[in-house]
């Protein structure tokens, strides 16, 4: 049983397209996150949800819109994709907002 699973694992798309990444956790955690890992492998928070409520929204372009339909799911929708959006996006979850987080396997997004 995968604790935090995200789909797809790879996503190749053209500039200007809209795409979504889905994430599900079966750990019963209250908090979920989206992180972006750039080419230098630096992990940076994008969004954080606690009990379906947005609690962290870092300086991310408003083309990125998270949605949490329930505590077990946090999806990321990206509009009008740009070349600079190419990165690996990780979903994660934790029991509470300050506890250790458990990560999915990542989605490698390539915009061409």
């Amino acid at each position, binding site marked *: 049983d995968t604790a935090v699973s995200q789909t797809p694992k790879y996503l190749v798309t053209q500039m200007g397209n809209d795409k979504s990444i889905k994430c599900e956790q079966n750990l019963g955690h209250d908090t979920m996150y989206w992180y972006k890992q750039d080419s230098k492998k630096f992990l940076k*928070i994008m969004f*954080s949800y606690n009990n379906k409520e947005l609690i962290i929204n870092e300086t991310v372009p408003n083309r990125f819109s998270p949605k949490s339909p329930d505590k077990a799911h946090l999806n990321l929708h990206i509009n009008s994709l740009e070349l600079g959006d190419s990165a690996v996006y*990780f979903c*994660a979850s934790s029991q509470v*907002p300050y506890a250790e987080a458990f990560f999915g396997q990542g989605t490698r997004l390539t915009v061409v």
Partner: protein
Amino acid sequence: EDQVTQSPEALRLQEGESSSLNCSYTVSGLRGLFWYRQDPGKGPEFLFTLYSAGEEKEKERLKATLTKKESFLHITAPKPEDSATYLCAFSNAGGTSYGKLTFGQGTILTVHP
């Protein structure tokens, strides 16, 4: 400003050669200090949480320690399978850091047979 810095950026060891990775942090109201391991093409894998200065945690060849300004990940007699990027992160119970883990840039460890 809350921040975390890891050193060295890269470390090459011979199998069996023990060493330590450093994580220096500045944070108001540290809630937790975390160590992760990341293999290429995978998500970070949780290793340890440390909550207060003086605390130590061990797992196989790894031991994590915490002071008021730093955390160390000691690797004893490493094996090639310990090769990975090791990430340090912290959480803050309040303020602008609440609700996220702030990561360092990582240390790339390579263990040669």
